[in-house]
């Protein structure tokens, strides 16, 4: 009950006119930031952090967290319309979101994405509000072995989904692993794969590679097919929102499952990226229409978006209670807390009640306000596809170049982006699946690192991956997912079909 009282007190803080105005401003700004890949999430918040010093801490965190919401919503827009994911966790959204837009269903895809992220985030906030004392300690049980098990599960639920040549899938994934490994090796402190080049020292950033592989290559392909974007003739009106909601109700099981996966991943805190891939993979494995995923199924948008935002939101819990950020944005917010003189950690909930509950209340309100704003804007977003191709293509090039540059403030990354654009174009035309490459690129480094950390701890013994109930069950679940195609066939044989 004390939580409810505290929450209402929090609402009274968040509903002060200044804070409410900041909330709306934050959401709008956040959507803009989310749309420009170079300013996405962490960057945008980091840039604005110093500007908030003139505000009260609670107002400042409301502004920043609303920017964060806005950026989460905004990230889906470019993924769906242009196949350009601005954040690692939007990658899985492109798999079905972009084909939907190409089939003239951009408005539906956007609505599904926004609504799912709202639901995912909302479930996560409920978790933070009511069961935080129960789950806050959960992250403590996660050592390197558990992290490796989670990464293994993410890979296992995803591998084997792509059709086509297994050799090409393997090659694609291996390229991803190699790219992920370039730069400084955390475990030994040595430089790997840089061949003496300063430019390669910073490694291959996800954003640079993906903007090229997905976004630029898509423009090249559109050009080849006649200087237009497909999907511009789709019906665009607010009725699309209602239509999509009706359709989403049928997929409530996927929504619930994805939200749970997301909360779990956020609290551990493995993060939103494995959550989105895992959720997409599981949805596809368990769906009767699995083979149609990747061609524009709405479930393929719902699953990753729900999970990513449930994870992104619940990642704030370990940040507040343990001081470990579950996402880069959370890391910057963490820095902000310290600068305001608020020490995140187990005592924050006790010592800074106003702040914590003001933040939580603003999460509820910010999320609702955010959904309303972006839904109203759906027709406008979808109408972007009607801008003549030469203009939009040029603007995409410029925005992508800025995005690639701002990741590391390196002009060399713009060249890299273009190289990956050509590579992506060639690979797509030769039927190399790109998803395994991106998955390996995004998760490869952390997977290798936690594997090696775990073995350091166990002095080389593999038993550490089965040393307690938690890690063993995640590993087991991973194996089930890995051998799912085989298992489901065995299952089918036991129950012969009536025919």
């Amino acid at each position: 009950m004390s939580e409810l009282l505290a929450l209402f007190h929090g609402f009274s803080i968040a509903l002060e006119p200044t804070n409410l105005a900041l909330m709306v401003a934050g959401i709008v700004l956040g959507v803009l930031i989310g749309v420009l890949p170079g300013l996405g999430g962490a960057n945008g918040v980091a840039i604005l952090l110093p500007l908030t010093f003139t505000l009260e801490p609670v107002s400042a965190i409301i502004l920043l967290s609303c920017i964060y919401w806005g950026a989460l919503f905004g990230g889906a827009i470019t993924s769906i319309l242009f196949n350009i994911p601005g954040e690692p966790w939007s990658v899985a959204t492109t798999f079905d979101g972009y084909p939907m837009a190409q089939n003239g269903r951009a408005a539906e895809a956007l609505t599904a994405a926004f609504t799912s992220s709202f639901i995912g985030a909302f479930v996560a906030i409920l978790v933070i509000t009511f069961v935080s004392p129960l789950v806050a300690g959960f992250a403590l049980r996660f050592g390197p072995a558990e992290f490796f098990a989670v990464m293994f599960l993410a890979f296992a639920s995803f591998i084997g989904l792509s059709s086509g040549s297994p050799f090409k899938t393997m090659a694609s994934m291996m390229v991803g692993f190699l790219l992920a490994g370039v730069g400084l090796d955390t475990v030994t402190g040595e430089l790997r794969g840089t061949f003496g080049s300063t430019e390669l020292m910073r490694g291959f950033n996800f954003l640079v590679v993906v903007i090229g592989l997905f976004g630029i290559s898509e423009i090249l392909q559109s050009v080849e097919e006649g200087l237009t974007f497909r999907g511009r003739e789709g019906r665009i009106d607010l009725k699309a929102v209602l239509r999509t909601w009706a359709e989403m109700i049928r997929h409530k099981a996927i929504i619930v499952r994805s939200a749970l996966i997301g909360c779990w991943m956020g609290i551990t805190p493995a993060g939103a990226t494995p959550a989105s891939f895992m959720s997409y993979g599981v949805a596809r494995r368990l769906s009767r229409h699995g083979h149609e995923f990747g061609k524009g199924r709405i479930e393929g948008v719902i699953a990753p978006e729900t999970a990513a935002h449930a994870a992104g939101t619940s990642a704030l819990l370990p940040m507040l209670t343990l001081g470990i950020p579950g996402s880069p944005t959370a890391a910057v917010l963490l820095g902000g807390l310290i600068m305001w003189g608020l020490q995140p950690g187990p005592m924050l909930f006790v010592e800074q009640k106003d702040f914590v509950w003001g933040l939580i209340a603003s999460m509820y309100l910010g999320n609702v306000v955010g959904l309303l704003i972006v839904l109203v804007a759906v027709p406008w977003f979808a109408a972007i596809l009607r801008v003549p191709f030469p203009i939009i293509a040029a603007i995409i090039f410029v925005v992508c170049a800025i995005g690639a540059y701002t990741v590391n403030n390196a002009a060399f990354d713009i060249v890299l982006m273009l190289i990956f654009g050509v590579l992506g174009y060639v690979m797509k035309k030769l039927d190399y699946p790109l998803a395994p490459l991106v998955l390996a690129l995004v998760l490869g480094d952390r997977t290798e690192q936690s594997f090696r950390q775990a073995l350091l701890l166990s002095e080389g013994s593999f038993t550490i991956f089965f040393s307690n109930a938690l890690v063993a069950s995640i590993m087991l679940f991973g194996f089930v997912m890995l051998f799912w195609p085989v298992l489901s066939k065995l299952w089918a044989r036991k129950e012969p079909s009536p025919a």
Partner: protein
Amino acid sequence: MPQFAGGGRGIGQTTVEVVLALLFMTVGGLAVSEGLRLGNGWGFDGPEAGYFPFWVGILLIVASGATLVQAIRRHDSGRLFVSWPRLLLVSRVLGPAIVYSAGIFVVGIYAASAALVLWFMRGIGGFPLRQAVPVAAALVTVTFLVFEIWFLVPLPKGPVEHALGF
């Protein structure tokens, strides 16, 4: 599939398959050599720094080798990767993009972006200059305001901006 359309002359599918597979095999080779340099063994408490690059490199070579063999065996020489007319279309966009990324190093991102928009609208889209120039100017101005002024994110600048004191 549209591969067959457009005249029937162009770059063959097999050629590109082979080139890409060879490229990947080279990358794999580099990874193997780097793995060997760093040590590809399995220490008493886990793999060394070069262990994963080494084996990932080997797998990449094997997978690409298999793709290479398949591509040569299949030998459907009639199939086109891209026809010349289509390649020309692509190069009309890719060429300026390459010039653009090189231009950023010389004249900064603002001037290069304006030029790119002008080229795309005038050269590819056939828009008259009186439409293209305002769009280019607007894009550059908005970008400048958003990044340099509001968010204080410095983007690459060239002699023009330096002359203006930025």
